[in-house]
């Protein structure tokens, strides 16, 4: 009954505060769409200049969807300087020599790929090692967006719930309503539970919209069950909410709440698997182990890219639940500062 009153009130507040509502739902969709536009372009076609290269090889290159131009060496060097070209291919005493513009690693990669593929079609297959790739997960169509997508879904849910949850609990304190609530027969645990459930209903909706949009509209790679994705994003949202409300106790205004972003949110982006940490010292990698987003992102990748079942990511689920419960309890303890009971 008491908790229900809190839930109804929080949902009513959401209904009134259209801007926060939009921030929590539209902002992630917008940013995901922008990421999609940036990452999901067609494969890059390098432009390559050829200097005295035999005609069959030039033909083979053109077949690889590269834009090929015949130039003199001086012209080509000049064009490389001006970044109008990505690479120059020249014949030097029966040997092919290639000069790359070189400032963008992904362009370099694209040039190398194009050349290798062209060579393959040119030489007789018999004396060429024939490489064929097979994929355990994903396929050659798995793009960068598909790879970082699951992490991004988790991140945006975490980020926006953290901010909105933290700020609204903070406002409860600064506008005096928290004190007012503590002068009523509400238990501390009821106040925190009301918050968790009220926001819970809302974040469920938010998770649903973000995940459905990413997968069905943007076409993010999806092997596993949609319901698992929803489960993980919901757990992430709960962790973010309880952490946000907990930290709001240590902020005295909205601005100080925003100051937690570089401390709490940004490090999670770096350690959660958006970037490969393989080369980092193991003890540094360990930092990721205390961050909720690490487990959420790990599970989401297992589900979305690798199509794994529950048994494969259940540890992540339990750890996320553990985080949420820990923060929930700490919230109740933190309220003790205001009222002993």
């Amino acid at each position, binding site marked *: 009954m008491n908790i229900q*009153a*809190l839930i109804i009130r929080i949902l*009513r507040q959401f209904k*009134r505060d259209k801007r926060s509502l939009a921030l929590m739902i539209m902002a992630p969709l917008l940013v995901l769409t922008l990421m999609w536009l940036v990452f999901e372009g067609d494969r890059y076609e390098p432009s390559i200049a050829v200097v005295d290269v035999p005609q069959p090889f030039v033909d083979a290159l053109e077949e690889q969807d590269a834009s090929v131009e015949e130039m003199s060496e001086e012209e080509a060097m000049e064009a490389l300087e001006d970044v109008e070209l990505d690479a120059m291919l020249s014949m030097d005493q029966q040997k092919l020599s290639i000069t790359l513009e070189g400032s963008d690693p992904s362009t370099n990669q694209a040039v190398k790929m194009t050349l290798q593929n062209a060579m393959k079609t040119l030489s007789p297959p018999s004396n060429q090692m024939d490489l064929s790739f097979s994929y355990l997960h994903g396929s050659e169509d798995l793009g960068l967006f598909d790879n970082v997508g699951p992490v991004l879904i988790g991140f945006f849910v975490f980020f926006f719930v953290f901010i909105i949850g933290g700020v609204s609990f903070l406002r409860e304190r600064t*506008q*005096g309503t928290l004190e007012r609530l503590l002068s009523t*027969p509400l238990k501390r645990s009821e106040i925190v539970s009301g918050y968790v459930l009220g926001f819970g209903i809302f974040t469920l909706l938010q998770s649903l919209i973000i995940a459905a949009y990413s997968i069905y509209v943007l076409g993010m790679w999806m092997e596993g069950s949609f319901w698992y994705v929803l489960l993980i994003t919901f757990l992430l949202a709960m962790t973010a909410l309880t952490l946000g409300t907990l930290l709001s106790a240590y902020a005295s205004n909205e601005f100080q709440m925003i100051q937690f972003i570089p401390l709490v949110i940004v490090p999670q982006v770096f350690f959660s698997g958006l970037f490969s940490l393989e080369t980092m010292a193991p003890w540094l990698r360990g930092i990721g182990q205390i961050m909720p987003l690490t487990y959420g992102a790990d599970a989401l990748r297992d589900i979305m890219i690798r199509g794994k079942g529950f048994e494969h990511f259940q540890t992540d689920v339990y750890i996320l639940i553990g985080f949420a419960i820990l923060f929930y309890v700490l919230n109740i303890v933190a309220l003790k500062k205001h009222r002993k009971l």
Partner: protein
Amino acid sequence: MESMVRVENVAHAFGEETVLKDIHLSIPKGEIFGLLGPSGAGKTTLVKVMVGILEVDQGEAWVKGVQMPSLEQMKVIGYMAQSDALYSELSARENLDFFGAVYELKPKERKERMKAVMDVVGLIDHMDKPVHKYSGGMKRRLSLAIALLHEPDVLILDEPTVGIDPMLRQSIWDELKSLQKKGTTIIVTTHVMDEAEKCDRLAMMRDGYLIATGTPQQLREQTNSETIEGAFLVYGGERE
């Protein structure tokens, strides 16, 4: 007489700063008790001790024979804080509905009470207006309405009439008097002197001390002053 609110030997400090010292109070049932003093005297802190939302370093507060804080006793207290604790994006009706539900009023009873209290504070026509469109005085009145909602035995009002015009202030005091007749015990903090005159008994506070307690008449006589303001100045002067 049975004492409704009792404060015994209370002392409290926020860090280094002592805000309450050696406070003893006993307020009988059905009394309007005024806490008078300049800002920073410790009125709000003392009131919070009675409400049970402040744990003091020393001493005890009792409401209706039960030591505070007690969740059970919080049901018999109606508290109006100094700052308007309202949800500004919600309408008055939604604010009232929320607090009514928190105090576990049944939906039908809740509706009736909401109407009754909004009538008392003269806001019945602004029931569905969002609170952020309210003026300062209207917010004050809505806060009072919320404190009255669950018909508490003890009403604790922290500067209830700040920002309210004299006409409405009069009608609010009429309502407090009629609540008193029904047996409600009312504790008000104020620094408006003519309001102090309306209290049955007064306690004057300064620098965390209770410097004098008595009826307005007693306080005036003891200090040979014609007004409460004069009495207040005399008591205040003694400490300096």
